[in-house]
């Protein structure tokens, strides 16, 4: 596997502009002769499909949901960063670039991150032109707020529904192209394989989830915009349908998978209430501005929170990080919560929770002020837990939220398979080992609106307008379709005794215990032994009812869980090989005397890229060295 990042020459400020000039263009009249297949319709997929359609390409877009408007980008609450410097507080493209590289614990590619920061401003302009209702001040201009990891206010927001408003903006742009006939939309259709000949992407095999029909689509390029893989943990803040299948199938066809172990665990989520739990709900990071995090000092203190006097409470973030206090970064706040719970000082029925207490803020500012700031979040908390957070402290616990790892891509967002592009959360490109808040929306839209539609032309142009697409009758398609059908039949014919969900839950526990917030060599080795056993059990004992030619929710889930059962092992291998702690990857063996993450720049200042070598075979680990010419590698400190 050859890893050429294709980073353009020249100073970092000029790379993107120079590259755009150097790339080939496709004549407007010829664009319709190129067919581009886009999988996924979240922020990245919908914005790419809309823009490619506007440019005149012949686009086919697929999503497994009933409408492109439902993709999980919609659930993002907080906001989207841009270096507009409207508040005049010293922001700049360079500062956004620097904060993002540092926030990622120096494990991302400088040139990509700089381009992202540069494009951030165009995104805001474009979304406002679309009619996205960002928050405005009384003068009618756009409002900004602050987010973690930055000392400037650069986050644009739309109440607590920024993701929803941006996604609907992209969905509307996509709808306009569907009406114009440039984009053909296939809803309730899941990609089950990418078709590759001589390491060139030729198309996809999909299954219509309504009638079960498996069919092939041939294209000149394939774009995966299929999101992250947090659901490998079973419980996460992801939507129920989020899965790794498209990315994993591409990996099995030769696309390198980069840094799969980089997972973001968000510190403020509503804790698990019982075995019935199907998903976790995030409570915005902004709550930590006024809430104080604590647990009882004594082990097994079962008193109600209001009965515990102040001197018997441990405000552990304030104690350990006096200068950042309750606003310590996500990875650190999450690990600290786990530590106190592991000591047996966790709260709630399960002991897996810590208090987020607004008592002092309410006494100081009054209930009305707190309600104005966080009313909707308090209501949501009360709806889910039936506890009133104005009277009792909230209980929170960390949960899997975002995955920084993904398919490896070069500067053009092309994977190691020619003509296979990967955009949004599905790729690994911009966040390094930790993503800063309000950066996911920025990256999804940068990739979809502004990067991919430019870079893909360079690839398509080399084919020439008179090129021929591989017909779906070709042997490569026939074989791929047959493999997909065989797998579906195999799932239906196991006829065992365990449900799909029971396997998914068991895998989730293995992953959470061994490849979660804190990772140890021994635990990872155990997981690498246990997961193949569970996988074997799955293929011997899973029970999938119903048939292949109908709307079959068990079958859908089974295929996704089967892929998670392979992918989980790859994550553990990556976590085991990375003998350092960086961002969301905390190897307990590698910490400072004070318990902080300890990077190893001498040996691990690189992205790890995994190459598939066969089922049950050990994959090959490649490295893409990371060079920092503009940013000095430093140790993050929040004391």
């Amino acid at each position: 596997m050859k890893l050429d990042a294709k980073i353009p020459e020249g100073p970092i400020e000029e790379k993107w502009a120079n590259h755009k000039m150097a790339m080939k263009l496709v004549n407007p009249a010829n664009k319709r002769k190129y067919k581009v297949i886009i999988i996924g319709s979240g922020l990245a997929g919908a914005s790419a499909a809309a823009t490619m359609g506007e440019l005149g390409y012949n686009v086919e877009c697929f999503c497994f949901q009933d409408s492109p408007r439902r993709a999980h980008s919609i659930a993002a609450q907080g906001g989207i960063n841009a270096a507009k410097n409207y508040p005049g507080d010293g922001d700049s493209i360079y500062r956004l670039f620097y904060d993002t590289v540092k926030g990622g614990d120096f494990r991302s590619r400088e040139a990509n991150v700089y381009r992202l920061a540069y494009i951030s401003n165009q995104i805001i302009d474009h979304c406002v032109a679309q009619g996205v209702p960002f928050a405005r001040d009384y003068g009618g201009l756009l409002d900004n707020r602050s987010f973690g990891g930055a000392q400037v206010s650069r986050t644009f927001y739309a109440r607590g529904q920024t993701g929803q408003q941006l996604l609907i903006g992209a969905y509307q742009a996509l709808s306009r192209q569907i009406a114009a006939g440039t984009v053909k939309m296939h809803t309730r259709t899941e990609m089950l394989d990418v078709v590759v000949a001589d390491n060139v992407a030729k198309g996809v095999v999909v299954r219509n989830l309504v009638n079960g029909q498996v069919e092939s689509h041939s294209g000149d390029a394939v774009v995966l915009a299929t999101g992250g893989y947090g659901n490998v943990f079973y419980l996460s803040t992801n939507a129920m349908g989020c899965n790794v299948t498209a990315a994993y199938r591409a990996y099995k066809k030769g696309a390198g998978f980069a840094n799969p172990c980089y997972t973001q665990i968000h510190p403020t989520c509503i804790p698990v209430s019982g075995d019935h739990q199907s998903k976790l709900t995030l409570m915005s990071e902004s709550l930590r501005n006024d809430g104080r995090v604590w647990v009882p000092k004594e082990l097994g203190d079962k008193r109600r929170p209001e009965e515990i006097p102040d001197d018997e409470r441990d405000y552990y973030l304030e104690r350990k990080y006096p200068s950042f206090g309750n606003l310590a970064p996500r990875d650190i706040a999450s690990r600290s919560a786990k530590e106190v719970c592991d000591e047996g000082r966790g709260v709630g029925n399960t002991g897996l929770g810590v208090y987020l207490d607004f008592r002092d803020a309410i006494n100081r500012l009054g209930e009305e002020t707190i309600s104005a700031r966080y009313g909707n979040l308090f209501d949501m908390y009360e709806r889910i837990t039936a506890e009133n957070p104005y009277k009792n402290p909230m209980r929170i616990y960390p949960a899997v939220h975002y995955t920084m790892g993904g398919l490896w891509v070069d500067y053009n967002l092309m994977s190691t398979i020619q003509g296979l592009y990967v955009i949004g959360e599905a790729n690994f490109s911009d966040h390094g080992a930790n993503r800063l808040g309000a950066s996911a929306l920025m990256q999804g839209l940068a990739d979809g609106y502004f990067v991919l539609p430019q870079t893909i032309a360079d690839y398509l142009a080399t084919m020439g307008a008179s090129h021929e697409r591989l017909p779906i009758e070709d042997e490569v398609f026939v074989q791929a379709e047959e493999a997909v059908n065989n797998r579906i039949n195999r799932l239906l014919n196991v006829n065992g005794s365990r449900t799909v969900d029971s396997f998914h839950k068991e895998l989730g526990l293995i992953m959470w215990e061994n490849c979660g917030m804190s990772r140890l060599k021994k635990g990872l080795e155990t997981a690498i032994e246990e997961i193949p056993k569970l996988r074997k059990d799955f293929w011997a004992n899973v029970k999938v009812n119903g048939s292949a030619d109908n709307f079959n929710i068990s079958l859908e889930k089974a295929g996704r869980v089967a892929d998670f059962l392979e992918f989980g092992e790859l994550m553990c291998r990556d976590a085991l090989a990375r003998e350092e702690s960086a961002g969301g990857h905390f190897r307990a063996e590698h910490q400072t005397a004070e318990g902080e993450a300890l990077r190893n720049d001498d040996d691990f200042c690189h992205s790890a890229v995994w190459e598939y070598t066969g089922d049950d075979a050990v994959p090959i680990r490649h490295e893409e060295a990371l060079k920092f010419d503009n940013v000095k590698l430093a140790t993050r400190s929040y004391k």
Partner: protein
Amino acid sequence: MAAYNIKIWRQNGPDSNGSMERHVVKGIDGDMSFLEMLDHLNEDLEEQGKEPVAFDHDCREGICGACSLVINGQSHGPETTTTCQLHMRSFEQANITEITVEPFRANGFPIIRDCVVDRSGFDRIIQAGGYVSVNTGNAPDANANAIAKPDADTAFDAAACIGCGACVAACKNASAMLFVSAKVSHLAHLPQGDAERHERVESMVNTMDREGFGSCTNYGECEAACPKSISTDNIATLNREFIRAKIGRIT
């Protein structure tokens, strides 16, 4: 832990006949969400070798708009929220143990299977004009035009629609007026939407009619059922926009 008698709609496919099926679901905790109760039912069914009940759901955070059940006769059940944010304590506290679960029923929402319906009519209504025609490129600076905060806030309230279709299911006419008016109103209150306002409202209303949704008779069930509290004021806005578009055509 409580037990519930569930009557739930089963229908094998779009062209099959459907019927209500009875199940007793045991071991239900008040902290479980309504959909987790159905997960529980489905696990039981799967263990017995039966096919689970199909229903749409995805984010389970009340924002994607996928979940779509009529529970004891009400779209999304007894509270002002989405089905996924409804919890079993709501029934526990009211001592309700009989629960009827049906799909969103409307001419414009044909059933696909069990409680899953086809809401692609909504997508086609948006495709008919629910957008601003601007290509990705070099838009003017985002702060080039100030938008008065009251207008921005009104636009936002309308833009909060999640496209779930509860309004249609609640309406005795199966009208999609609240949904259509939310988008018309969102864009009509912003300068960006001004240039196409006449074509937009006419085209969206025509498509709504063509998709088989009924007429609005100001019944108001839509607003009561809406999990995002979209106001029927938007319907007044739509009517005004529609008349203005027609007059604009004549003169």
